């Protein structure tokens, strides 16, 4: 699967596009749109977003628009197991990710929207809605609209349903200077294999998955 991320020049939108390969499942939404665009975006964070948004469709080869680090490629392989993922666009040149010291609480419509995040200090609540227009940003809360919320996940496992919208949130992590990610309302998922895998993937991009 070839995944590219386009940032609208006016910063009013981001599109994550997937082109399915021979063995990939065709995503229900091959173009995932977000009603806002980050100012800065590290390729490894891009890779995390791509992997999370299209995690149900990728079958084998994954090509990323701007590539990713070897560490991230390895993390993606582990995240996708037992699917035999091959990341074809590895960039061996190291580059720094800007990180902060706050927590990003991700709230997704239809998954954990009723939760009440316990915020502290400079924490930010990042809300992803499925329909609407525009982006709302305050110092403590950011709201975007994205059809990532509509990407299907089989079974009724909240953490799996959340993954595509979480990928959207990761796109903005650098702008918001966060280093931790919390998923409010998903306390039950903490001890699961899904949580462990997700934690390892985010860790490779400098984001720590913390207990809500």
């Amino acid at each position, binding site marked *: 699967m070839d995944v590219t991320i386009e940032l609208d020049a006016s910063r009013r939108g981001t599109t994550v596009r997937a082109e399915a390969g021979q*063995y990939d499942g*065709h995503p229900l939404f091959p173009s995932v749109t977000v009603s806002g665009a980050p100012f800065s975006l590290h390729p490894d964070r891009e890779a995390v977003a791509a992997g999370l948004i299209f995690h149900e469709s990728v079958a084998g080869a994954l090509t990323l628009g701007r590539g990713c680090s070897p560490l991230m490629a390895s993390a993606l392989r582990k995240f996708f197991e037992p699917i*035999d993922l091959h990341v074809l666009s590895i960039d061996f040149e190291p580059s720094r990710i800007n990180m902060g010291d706050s927590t990003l609480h991700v709230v997704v419509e239809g998954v954990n929207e009723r939760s009440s995040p316990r915020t502290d200090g400079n924490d930010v609540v990042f809300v992803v809605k499925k329909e609407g227009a525009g982006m709302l940003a305050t110092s403590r809360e950011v709201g975007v609209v994205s059809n990532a919320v509509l990407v299907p996940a089989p079974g009724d496992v909240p953490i799996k349903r959340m993954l595509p919208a979480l990928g959207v949130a990761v796109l903005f992590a650098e702008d918001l200077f966060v280093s931790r990610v919390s998923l409010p309302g998903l306390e039950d998922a903490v001890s699961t294999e899904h949580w462990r895998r997700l934690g390892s993937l985010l860790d490779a991009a400098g984001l720590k998955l913390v207990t809500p």
Partner: protein
Amino acid sequence: MTVPESAAPKPDLAVVIGFRDWGLPRLVLALEAHAHSDFAARLEVIVSDYGSKDREEVEQVAQRGGARYVYTEVDGPWSRSRALNAGIAASEAAVVITTDADLLFTPALHGAAYARLQDDPRSIQLVQCRDLSPGFHVDAIDEFDWEAFEAHSTFRPRWGMGGMIAFRRECLLETAGYDERMEIYSGEDLDFARRLAWAGHRLSWIDDPATRIYHVWHSSSRTAANQTPAGRLAIERNRSIYLNDKTVVRNVRRPAVGPLASVAIATHNRAEYLEQALQSVLAQPIEDIEVVIVDDGSTDQTADVVRDLGDSRLRYVRQDNGGVPSARNRAVAETRSKFVIVHDDDDIFLPWRIEAHFDALTVGAHGTYGGWVDFSADGALAARSGKSFSADAILYAGGVLLHPTLMLRKEILERFTYDESLRAGSDYNLVTRLATSGVKLNHTGEFHILRRLHESNITHTTADHQQESARRTTNLMRRRLHKAEEDAARAAARGMGPVVCRGAEDVAGRVGPYLPDDLVRRTIRIDEADAARAEEARQVLVGLGAKTSVPWAALHRLRALGVDFTVGAAGEAGAAPADQARAPADEVEAAAMRDVVGQAIAAIGRPGKTVAVALTEADTPAAEVLWDAAPEFQRLVAADGRQFVAVGSVHEHIGDAVGAVSGFERFSSSVRSVVVDLSNGNMRAAIADGLIDEGRGISQEPGDAAYRERLTGEVREAVEQSLPATAHVAVVSRGDDDLLDLDGRHAQHFPQVDGTYAGHHPGDSTEAIGFLRSARAAGVEYLLIPPASAWWLDYYEDFRRHLERLRCVYRGDEGAVIFDIREPLRRQQRVVRALREVIRRHGS
């Protein structure tokens, strides 16, 4: 085809093996391997035998091997697609593996595939097979030495779809199975797996030493298939399907597992319209559907209407009144297929709609939609094609799509529910949200519904709320764009033209026959080759009193019987009653007819009269009925080893003979008939010319050179005297091309369908007038009635009166008449003309 319920515990996994004739020993070996599976207790194996000559032998092998046996009677080539679909339909397991009869599965494979599908339900699991060396042919294998197999096999390159495909049964609802157009050899598994990927399932290869498939050596099937022209053609055709067909769902008429689609209808107190709405859905040709009707708290006879239709595909769900959006959401929730077709309770569902939906559902599309035709209480039609679907088009162009023409993948409607907070406009709101969220819809290029316009349309009753809701929705979505973008979108939308729908140039012809019963005289042609079924159909029509028009109830009943038919409307050239029984041309029949016409004329013909003769195959229900219906002349005729029944009647007037012929032809599509006009001097002329020997009858149909020369000469004289060289003329010709030779003038047959002679006389004046209007619309300026057809003016009285309002430019002594049909005479002119006619008749 839906899977029957079974009392025994259902297996978790089914292995379906397609088979026909060849390789029985390899099948024995394969079944033995499956029986040794670690998963055997939860597994069923199905041998789907597609037409083996010695089915008993195959069945015994299957049973001895512990497999279920499914047999499909076939008179045609091998089709792995059809064999596998038949086996899948017979299975009851939630997970299916399709494979071949020459493949040996290691014991761990079944369980591994099943477990991986549990972990990754949206995947398809594949295992590539390994080819055993020639030393490992079937006779050389007496035990499953997997290590030896591994050592003596080569891995087949992973460019195909391997030796097996494992998938969850619900995948079939998204694709309708293997493509049954594919025959003999190659491509069906590639095509199936690819369509599963298009439907969102990733293809996952199991690569584990414990999970292997070994292909028992034998000579190449492809080589065998390539030896014959039919085989090579089939391979080419399969390849073409694979390369060119981008639709996701195949076998629309016979899906492997159903229901193919769910028609979702929300209704509230519309019993008066609901019956025909439902009949129109049930009368379309795709059988394997369900129709979910959510009754939103009706207080009329809605429940009775649904119950009285008595069709098991109807599912009635009642809820307390919660409004249209709530009823629609409930309907979607109740559907069992993967595709939801939206339909309104007061509209007519056009019969080609479902096929059109799936023909346009190509890779990447979330749904499809079409045009619609509005009709009002007086039957007036207004066609609306719609436009290409996009967010900008929805917001700025208008007229893009009508909600009840939609089909959507169910998973889309589960994500985009109807907004139950809206009092009105939930349809527009949904469509706008779809468009702005990246949903892709394809236009089918067809009209999908006849939309009924009436006072109680929701659009009428809640107009203010609709507008308010629409504006709010629009304004919200406009916020996605800044002004420059919006200006550009508006400009682009202004330039957006409608999609072209099939039949747009003749909407009345295309959709008119499907109007409600009170607005159309509907005719029908039974296209059924099976005589018994055709007779059953006739009984339905008779029982429903379908004399002057065929009601929707009859179409529903005929479809339920499985009868093929074509619908038309009186006045339309599609299926007039006299066209109902036109059998395909058959030389043997024609020869028999020629013989018997001569005999009939000799037996019962008299100068000045007309003889009607009908002919049909003996030993058919129609033959019995004809024999009883025409006592004046009855014959058994033999021709080329076939037996025919011929009957005849003689009439004072050719119009009566035409009526008799129409009556004969109503019995069956297999009846051919002829009317021989012995009036107007034709009999005398025919005898004088030796065409009739009074002892032997006419030796051939009128059309003999001398006779025809007389006929056509008179016509040419009429035309030369009265028509300009550039005239466009319609000729009542009975299909005789010689009558169109009018000295360079543009001439055409009358009546005419699709540019050729219609093949029949009009059933009545209304139909004749309809044909005339069609001709006029096509540019015809004059109508020429030759002497041989002068009886039209006696038989079709209303048609004659219609013509009398027009200017008559020629009236010959032998009976030829020419009318200028371009515009009716003014009243004064008609009076003057009538007076002149009186004077002419009674002398000056």
